[in-house]
């Protein structure tokens, strides 16, 4: 290896993502300035819209709920060296599970509906990710390509079902029937009027549980160790007696199940039915969230709140600055993915050098290494 040393842990997990985020924000600011708007006003409006008042915070946390699920979905797969781009399709199709439970048990209690809806949508999302997992494990087709294809297939299936099969009589737009009673998951605003009209609901509890679950699974179980081993070095895990193909299928199923839970939040938490494109790209946001959060539950929670704030702030921005569309958040999202994901090499060498020169411990170690001679 070259002379540069790896960064200290805090710089790797916090400083570098932060600098990359700043870079993405600077470029976004340039875009806003280029269309003749004031980027500082834009940031102020977005920050106020996201955190300035109760309803804004409610919306931010509502979006964050979705992004926690999809971010975890990407992260779990990433730890195993797999790239699941199919979160969008998995979540969309999982809407069927959520609405089925909601409609069937509409006359019972939400205490029954919520956990069962989580299970049902996780099952459908999981199966929809298991197929690409199986195809990679047993048939050698790459999971990146197949999950992209499966997004489109899911979208076609849902369009067909919503237009021809599930649409109730007398309804114009393609959608399922509405849940009216227990199928509607309680909103937190019923207990805390602070949240105004925000659709933040009980699903967030499951998002927090999912964060804990993923942490325990990845870092506190034998399975998690095997999973990460495969991600670091597939041949090593094979020699250690781990079945990589079996792992691939299990990991993809878990990943899809996590993505599928988004459906509960959107279907039973907001719309009370399934409509076309109900997941609205949240599956893709998971990629940015996982990259930003360094594939760690704590990072993902923070990144999900950040992106929740971007989405909610973006809505506000649209009202306050009509010259900027909400698509600005897609630009920011793209830049975050680009800088924290693909262009990480932009800042890392410079940062490593900076730590080499300025970090006291590094300086001592570097000096020691130079006198001994490098190993290669």
């Amino acid at each position, binding site marked *: 290896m070259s002379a540069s040393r790896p960064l200290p842990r805090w710089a790797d997990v916090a400083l570098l993502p932060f600098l990359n985020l700043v870079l993405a924000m600077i470029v976004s600011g340039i875009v806003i300035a280029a269309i003749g708007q004031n980027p500082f006003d834009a940031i102020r409006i977005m920050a106020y819209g996201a955190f300035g008042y109760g309803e804004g915070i409610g919306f931010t946390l509502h979006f964050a709920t979705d992004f926690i699920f999809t971010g975890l979905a990407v992260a779990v797969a990433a730890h195993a060296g797999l790239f699941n781009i199919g979160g969008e399709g998995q979540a969309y199709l999982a809407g069927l599970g959520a609405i089925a439970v909601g409609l069937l048990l509409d006359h019972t209690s939400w205490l029954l509906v919520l956990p069962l809806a989580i299970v049902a949508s996780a099952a459908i999302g999981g199966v929809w990710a298991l197929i690409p997992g199986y195809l990679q494990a047993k048939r050698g087709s790459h999971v990146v*390509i197949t999950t992209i294809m499966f997004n489109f*297939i899911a979208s076609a299936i849902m369009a067909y079902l919503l*237009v021809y099969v599930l649409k109730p009589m007398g309804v114009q737009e393609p959608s399922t029937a509405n849940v009216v009673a227990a199928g509607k998951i309680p909103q937190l605003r019923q207990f805390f009027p602070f949240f105004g009209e925000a659709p933040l609901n009980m699903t967030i509890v499951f998002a927090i549980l999912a964060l804990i679950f993923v942490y325990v699974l990845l870092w506190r179980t034998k399975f998690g160790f095997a999973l990460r081993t495969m991600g670091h070095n597939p041949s090593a895990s094979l020699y250690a007696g781990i079945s990589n193909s079996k792992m691939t299928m299990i990991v993809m199923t878990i990943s899809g199940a996590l993505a599928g839970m988004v459906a509960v939040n959107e279907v039973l938490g907001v719309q009370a039915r399934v409509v076309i494109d109900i997941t609205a790209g949240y599956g893709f946001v998971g990629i940015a969230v996982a990259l930003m959060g360094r594939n760690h539950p704590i990072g993902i929670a923070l990144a999900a709140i950040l992106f929740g704030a971007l989405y909610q702030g973006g809505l506000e921005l649209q009202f306050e600055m009509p010259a900027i569309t909400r698509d600005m958040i897609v630009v920011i999202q793209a830049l975050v993915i*680009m800088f924290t994901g693909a262009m990480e090499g932009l800042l890392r060498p410079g940062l490593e050098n900076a730590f080499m020169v300025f970090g006291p411990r590094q300086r001592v170690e570097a000096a020691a290494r130079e006198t001994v001679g490098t190993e290669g």
Partner: protein
Amino acid sequence: MDYETIISTFAATLRLTTPLLLACLAGLYSERSGVFDIGLEGKMLAGAFGAAAVAVVTGNAWLGLLAAIGVSILMAMLHAVASITLKGNQIISGVAINFLAQGLTAVLGLAWFHLGGRTPAPPDSGRFRPIVWPAADQIHGIPIVGPIYATLLSGHNILVYVAFLAVPITYWVLYRTRFGLRLRAVGENPKAVDTAGISVTLMRYRALLITGALCGIAGAYFSIAQGNGFVNNMTAGDGYIALAALIFAKWRPVPAMFATLLFGFLDALQIRLQGVSVPGLNWPIPVQFIQALPYVLTCVLLAGFIGKAIGPRAGGVPYTKER
């Protein structure tokens, strides 16, 4: 279906195949050089916007085309810097480029034209109009051959012919030139190319330059040839279908043409069948099934149930010289 309808469906197939084919060949150059590119969609979309914006302002289709190529190459170079120079993850970079194009076209579209993200329709001089071949009207009357000449071959805009001409050119470049040999080698075994004293980095940059140019042409086709101005997200997933076609064609130019023709035909069929009932059945044909078919077929192929698709061996791996 009568003969005229069949011929006009085939003509529609050619028109729908054009952007797929251009994007597919674009992806071919990139992936053959060992750089995955799932950002074809984004490059086309950016190109489409660039073409429309310039064509609206200048009223010149050729300037529009040039702008599309320029914008798309810019995007391709972003991908190149991220994935070749900085050795980043090529998939992630592609994802970012798709989002960047989707977001930027909408933001800039609204800011510049105030039409909710659309551009106005360019004037007639700002579009590539259908080229009617000599004596098409007279020949049309001749049975069998007439409609083939007048409807199928004649009456497309120039970019359609460019796309199909790009197939033999790509074949020739890939298999008959020194550049092509090196391009294929750099995707299979970059180390060997490096040992021969050829810069892997430079080869890959060149390949991505071509990718950008072809995606730009495809983009211009959307907004100033087939369509009339830019509409939000107007490429509608064609970049991904092109990617599927590339796998289907096993990264070879002539099969790429047939794969995109197949997918283009499915699309034409789907449009023609909208609202048509199957005789005997009371149901309209669900067009969603036909829409999903390219993706299903690609998955089936990738899974090795009908032949095996194996990509360039060095695909997706940034090249690092030994230190």
